[in-house]
């Protein structure tokens, strides 16, 4: 599975409780849509750290990095590129 598929599936199943791909667009804001609350951010961080073997720094906790499927995928890819 690609990074995007993995993240999409995780968010769909764990925050929207569905496998309906049409329930979420890649650039839908998690925060604005009420999809993710303060604890949800923590859940997502734990997930990407464990799944992609990266570490999210405090200063990286930005909507630009975390607030949509597209942002998350780009963020993970950047982190992996730096680590590689």
């Amino acid at each position: 599975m690609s990074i995007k598929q993995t993240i999409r599936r995780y968010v769909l199943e764990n925050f929207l409780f569905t496998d309906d791909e049409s329930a979420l667009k890649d650039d839908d804001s998690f925060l604005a849509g009420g999809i993710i609350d303060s604890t949800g951010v923590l859940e997502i961080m734990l997930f990407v750290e464990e799944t992609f073997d990266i570490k999210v720094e405090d200063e990286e906790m930005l909507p630009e990095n975390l607030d949509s499927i597209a942002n998350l995928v780009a963020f993970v890819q950047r982190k992996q590129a730096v680590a590689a």
Partner: protein
Amino acid sequence: MCGISGIVALSARTRISESDVRRMLPALRHRGPDGSGIYLDDPSGRIGLGHTRLSIIDLEGGAQPMANEDQTVWISFNGEIFNYIELREVLLKAGHRFSTHSDTEVIVHAYEQYGDDFVQHLNGQFAIALWDASRQRLLLVRDRVGILPLFYTRQGERLLFASEIKALLPLLSEAPRISPAALDQIFTFWAPRSPHTLFEDIFEVPPGHLLVLENGHLRESVYWDWHFPEQGDYLAGSDAELTGQLYELLADATRIRLRADVPVGAYLSGGLDSSALVALIRRHSEAPLKTFSIGFEDKSLDESAFQQQLVEHLGVDHRRVFCHNRDIAEDFPATVFHAETAILRTAPTPMRRLSGLARASGYKVVLTGEGADEALGGYDLFKEAKIRQFWARNPRSEWRPLLLKALYPYLETAGAQAKTYLRNFYGIGLDHPEQPGFSHLTRWFTTAQCKVFFSPELTAALREDAATGLIDQLPPAFGRWHPFNRAQYLEAKTLLGGYLLCSQGDRMLMANSVEGRFPFLDHRVIEFANRLHSRLKMRALNEKFLLKRAMAAHLPREILERHKQPYRAPDIPAFFSARPPAYVDDLLSEEKLRRYGYFDAKKVGFLLNKARRGSTIAYKDNMALVGILSTQLCHDHFIERFSQTIHEMSETSL
């Protein structure tokens, strides 16, 4: 306390049979294990009353149903009239003759003296069925805030009523149905909105209401409600004077609640309210006092250290029941059976253990601190609303929302992600802070997210949004009250009456035949508190300001100054930190979810996966899972196994 029940004919040709009146009693035995009785209006056969008794006052003379001297007024009564001694004196002077020393008889004579206004003279907690044989009319009355329950339903040409829904079941021709609107309300406010219950066509007498059945017609009136100053006519006086008045009122409310012919204990959580209550009891009673509390294995929920501090400070004999996660999981079906409704938290379950501890220690009566947060302004939600009001005056402010950090210390406020979250979540309704539900929008919004698990069929059956329905029913004066008072009213009408006093209160106490008494809910205390300006309830962000002042000389500083900790029990961890009991897997199986039809089996499956992985930390996930499980349990107890449940209840000997 006790259980009451009855049947009344709605048409002239209908007659009530004694066997039907008796069939309602076994389901109420836990409320009244010390005796039972019935009254059948003879020869008319128009009405039958039932009663199961927990004897607390006038152990010899208080049997019910009870009548006046010429047997024209009959009563079945659950509760306590704490001012019965004073009221008896007044009625004796007016020429009434008493044959017992019970508080029940005082009600009968008060009705003779004052008519339907008798209820205005009662200070207490009560559910009353009163039959006036000469006028052929039935009164059903509940206390002002809803401490004691009373349900009714129409069955053909008969009206059935009882302290608990389960006593109505044996006379229903078929199993009740769960109401989609009630589920919508529960998954918004945590409780059905009075007079609705979880079940279609079964209603409660709302708190502060009087129902009169006469000539086949049911007439409902409000005899009391929470109300607040509309034109700035707050109580006058210096802080010191009002502090003194509050103390005297609380002391008297406590003193009259110590009246009983059996020993009286108290719940002690370690928070301000129960600590204040225990301090008041110690100051105004000579008797040794026994107190009771709950301990949890999750240290973030456990308040033992504070409890111990109070025990030493006040010199009480304290007992504690420890509640393990697995205890909660195992006890949960019985909790739901007693609560008779879906609930979004497991918190009632340990309360049943607590009443079990009191009972096993030889106590039938406990004083407890509920109501202080509602009347005197203690809830975090009130603070949150105050901060959001303040923020709404300058919505662009970066700084104003950061005040929320003082309220929720765990809240992450650093960084752009957290700031965006703050703005999105707590900023809800900021453009219209005068809207009636403003104070509760965040809670209702979060809770209503659980509705994502509703099945398409259930969602399709919903006609009106629960919050809109509530707003439409608010009293006309609501909009003229101070925003702080509006929040208090909403809290009293949703969580207090609909959940705290019943699912988490009466039903968990009565499951073990224990009576709770609530000094902070004495209507004199509420009426006094309602006329206080909100700055005496919450000064800046210091909650229950006047109560703290009133108790300052009697409590340790650590208790007065501790950050308020809401009572909670473990929710999902109670079921999933180890292997859950078999009923959990069974009721949450795809087959049962589909067959019962309330929830989307696939979505619940994803939630279960998440719970099993141990990664459900969000409030809404916890509420959703407990709400789904308790709804399934209600269906299982009261619908799927309808006949069996009735049969099992009838096996209970009276």
